[in-house]
């Protein structure tokens, strides 16, 4: 058992957490009947995907991809930089997710005012 690398364990944990978050979110979206819980589920799926994306760009013992004197000296010593592209993309994706959640919550408020309930199985003016 002494061969197990702590980094490997960590990466399994991170990827596992990402997949776990996506599954929890899917469960909430598909099973839960309360509109707010569904919106929370959507955000959890997003979080899982963001974690997955960051994990893919990570390099074990890598340094942060900042173009500074310290960063350059570290790279000259042979330390690798982690991939900055996924981090930039995740920032964008977080902003988009924020926008979607805001719109979703405002729609939930509108639905609640219109139907006096936030349970999806009691709102069926249109065919679902």
């Amino acid at each position, binding site marked *: 058992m002494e061969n197990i690398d702590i980094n490997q364990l960590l990466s399994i944990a991170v990827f596992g957490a990402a997949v776990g978050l*996506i599954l929890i979110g899917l469960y909430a*979206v598909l099973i839960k009947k309360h*509109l707010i819980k*569904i919106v929370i589920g*959507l955000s959890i*799926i*997003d979080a899982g*995907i963001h974690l*997955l*994306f960051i994990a*893919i760009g990570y390099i074990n013992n890598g340094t942060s991809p900042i173009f500074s004197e310290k960063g350059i000296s570290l790279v000259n010593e042979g330390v690798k930089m982690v991939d900055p*592209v*996924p981090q930039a*993309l995740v920032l*964008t*994706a977080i902003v*988009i997710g924020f*926008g*979607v959640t805001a*719109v*979703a919550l405002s*729609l*939930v408020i*509108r*639905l609640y005012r*219109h139907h006096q309930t936030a349970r999806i199985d009691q*709102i069926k*003016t*249109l*065919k*679902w």
Partner: protein
Amino acid sequence: MVVSPVHFIAVPLLAAFLMPILAKVNKNLLRIIPGIVLTYLGYVSVVLMNRVATEGTIIEVLAGWSAPWGINLVYTPFTGFLATLMIAMSFLIWLYSFKFKQVDNQPALKYFILQMMLTTGSVGLVLTGDIFNFFVFMEIIALSSYALTAFYRDRNGAEAAFKYLLIGAFSSTLILLGIVLLYSQVGTLNMAEIAVRMHDVPTPMKVSILILFLVGIGIEAEMFPLNGWAPDAYSQAPSPVGVAFAALVVKAGVYGLVRIVYTLFDLDGTGSFLVVMGGITLVVAEVTALRQTSLKRMLAYSSIGQMGFVLIAFGIGTHEAVFGAIFLMFNHAIIKGLLFMSGSYLVYNTPNKEIKYLSGYGMKMPLISLFFSLGALAIVGLPPFAGFWSKLYILLAAADSALYGLIALILAVSIIEIVYYFRVVGRLYFGKAAEGSIMQKPTVGGVIAMSILAIAILVVGIYPDIITGYIDNAASAILDTDTYIKNVLGAVNEITPVENIIQ
């Protein structure tokens, strides 16, 4: 002034966010600005279409970072054709909705801002050469569509919008997951470079990524069984928004599917998959349309059916079929635009937008009824109108590929289509008029927009040659992946990014 593809994104986005400020200066500005912006973009597209016809593909490098590193816009004959079509349709929608909410400027301001965002997103999605930008533009379209669907407080807009949002958020999740997996495999986001490196990706991975993309984008493209949002969104949104969905959103979705399938992936069997899914979409949507009692829902299902037809043609994949598919996308935009514009005046005051109240409207609203009938005749593909040619070309392409079962299917579905459209037209002209129905007088802008569309349908129907040259170039452009890659990555040598870092 130097025109460039960037203007398609920068100008409407800037205008959208300046409009709240300018509307405070003069409240008429919020109605006039979109028209000015879209007129300018129309000029840009004409200039660029001429340039692309003589000099070939235009690559616009953003912020000095060239192709594999930075974001680029790719203006090929195909993307240019779609962008021009979208700008033209946006302009007509603006004309149609110029007096929208005339008494109350606050909702009108929101409406015009969201329409500008919708245009930005659709045109940007078509022009971008970067897969993550593709996702961002898809989200811009989605967010503005949700807001526009929920526009009316008194209708069931919020419910339709929430339904759309659930499906849409799920779709964007799948696309994002697809992009994550794709990036982990090829290490790049540039579409041309992905296409180059795709050959080294193991097949199971390729198939998984393709499925994620197909399901994700299929939702925007109204592919069966992912189109549950469409009928509700079309019927609950304000009527100009229905036109925008048919002419911009769905077109962008279909473009996304085609770009992913044709350029990014080189898998066998995707074509047959598209044919099968398109066939199912076509049959299910047209049969459902037959059962609809609400005019707008009927038009929405008809729209889904037409998109199934487009997918069939793209799935066949020969040059003639792709030609027919692009022709049908063009025709669907102008004809369904006319149908939605005229149809929503017909049902303006009827309860639940039901067809049965339309009896005898042919005499009461002669012009609008004429436009609607013209659109109905054109979309089922009767000879002197535009819809005839696209259907003919797709059928010929299917015959060339010896897909006789498919031809039988398309013709059978056409009969269903004729039945449900002529049911409405028959009721308009031969039904007994009910008492006391209130007619809505169309606005001047609306009549002009509808006349332009009707004239376009007639002109393209009688002289298809005026448009076939552009469509032929477009079909060659989407099929020729090697030239696309060469054009995009060839731009690497022109500007070296290192120099730009030092600057």
